[in-house]
């Protein structure tokens, strides 16, 4: 499982304060703890913490890389912010550009731009591509799959290795009215997305979004994670510091024969997660 640690995000109070006060220690500590817990990548999201997002993402990247070599996932809806982060980054071990839709009303070529940015960042740079286009987030299974297919074929057209694409079928909060059908739709979409390329493109989800605003958040996240793994999910943006979540992950991967069983399978998971 390719785990992207979600904690370095300006939406969290501790990170927001650390950004405001340029407190490196808080950020570096989160980088270290998430790495030890099994994160393959560390998500870096400025959130709403600062006015100058480009300078802030650069400060975060530099701060993390002073003490930690875990690859980063630069998380912004604005290409300029990701481009700014890429300027400061050491992408030798990889980097994820997180994320782009297939296209936007304001920018038909947005995916091409991300592919170009990834190519410039080096052979290990990947992209999270959302199953979303200029018409917005699809509500049904078929449109999700169709958008994913267009993403994969665009990558192939451009000679961009499909193994460098992470398809994100976009999980919406289950508590939103009429959204309860979506988790099932996403699983059905994943069943088809995995056949779009061989080997299958990676699939990732921003798991915590599912339980936004709901009661029993951790339980909702954990159960859906196990369900999604059984449908081929091989990456997720998660709180790797949530031990119960990690135990579910270890067990689901073991049951899917992704990890060899041993009596200590829970304990050793973080050392073998990716």
């Amino acid at each position, binding site marked *: 499982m390719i785990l992207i640690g979600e904690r370095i995000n300006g939406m969290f109070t501790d990170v927001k304060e650390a950004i405001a006060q340029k407190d490196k220690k808080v950020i570096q500590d989160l980088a270290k703890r998430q790495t030890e817990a099994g994160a393959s990548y560390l998500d870096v999201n400025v959130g709403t913490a600062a006015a100058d997002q480009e300078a802030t993402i650069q400060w975060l990247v530099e701060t993390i890389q002073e003490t930690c070599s875990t690859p980063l996932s630069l998380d912004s809806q604005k290409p300029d912010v990701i481009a700014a982060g890429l300027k400061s980054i050491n992408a030798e071990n990889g980097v994820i550009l997180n994320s782009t839709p297939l296209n936007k009303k304001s920018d038909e070529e947005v995916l091409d731009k991300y592919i170009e940015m990834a190519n410039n960042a080096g052979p290990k740079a990947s992209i999270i591509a959302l199953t979303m286009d200029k018409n917005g987030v699809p509500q049904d299974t078929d449109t999700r799959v169709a958008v994913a297919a267009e993403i994969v074929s665009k990558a192939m057209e451009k000679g961009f*290795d499909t*193994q460098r694409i992470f398809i994100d079928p976009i999980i919406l909060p289950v508590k939103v009215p009429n959204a309860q059908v979506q988790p099932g739709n996403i699983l059905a979409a994943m069943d088809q997305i995995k056949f779009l390329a061989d080997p299958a493109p990676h699939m990732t989800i921003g798991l915590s979004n599912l339980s936004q605003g709901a009661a029993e958040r951790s339980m909702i996240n954990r159960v859906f994670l196990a369900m999604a793994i059984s449908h081929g999910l091989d990456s997720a943006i998660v709180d790797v510091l949530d031990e119960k979540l990690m135990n579910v992950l270890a067990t689901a991967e073991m049951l899917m024969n992704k*990890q*060899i*069983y*041993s*009596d*200590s399978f829970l*304990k*050793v998971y973080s*050392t*073998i997660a*990716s």
Partner: protein
Amino acid sequence: MPIPEIAESFTGSVNKVTLGATKNEGGSRTSTITVGGAKNVVYGGSPDQFGEKPVIAMDVIDSKPEDWPDTLIEPYKDVLDNPGDWAKKAVEEFGADLICVKFDGIHPDKADKDATHAIKITEEILKAVGNPLVLWGSGNDEKDNQVMPKVSGAAKGENCLIGTITEDNYKSLTAIALADGHHLITEAPLDINIAKQVNILASDMGFPLEKIITFQSTGALGYGIEYAYSIQERQRLAALTGDKMMAMPVICDVGYESWRAKEAKIADAPGWGEAADRGPMWEAATAICLLQAGVDIIRMRHPRAVATVKNFINQVW
């Protein structure tokens, strides 16, 4: 349309392990042996992914073997009583990369010899050859726990490969191997889940994963080789996909297992061909089959089988 790139790319690799310590490294070996490092399946990928060449550890038994067939006795008949000379012969005449000292003689059901004997044999062989050693207990937990720590001490600083530890008996040998600077063999009974668990148990005691070689147990041709093969294959794939608890190089015991087969040892079997050829062929076929699943150190016995397997290795790697 361009031909698609279908080469598998793996994220992990088999650990690279160096056995033996030269004078500069605090030992008395004149050479060291490095194994492991493969980044792909056997025959897979480009030559830079092959890793180190597999090597052969030739068995030297601490006490004269009582049950060896004539074909196997023949090449060693003048040295069977003298493990030092035996080791020398295996290295100088038969090209052994390593010597595996097998302490059968300490087993309570065999000669039941004591630690003094085992220490003496270890010292003799260390003196007789400059190659790195494998030091392998009798398989009787209680006796091995008495004797093998002393053997470890007698070879302290030589960076030997010592074993084996199992799920039920690992504490004393793991602790002493760590203290004496040796590498360790973790053993499992053709069970990959237990194999992983033994590695975790050793690691929990502070033993570095990078200093472990795994022994999954071996089955000879016709006697369960398919089980050994599929486990070795699965271990290699786990290593290549990044499972650090399974990324160790592998040792297998082809010599002992092959020569247990009746096809290898029975002399009087009309229609089976010459006994003098059958045994070495059985041993070589077993070794070459397992090499293709991904093994790094092969314990062997008959010099003709060793020559055949070395020839194969040199052609493939």
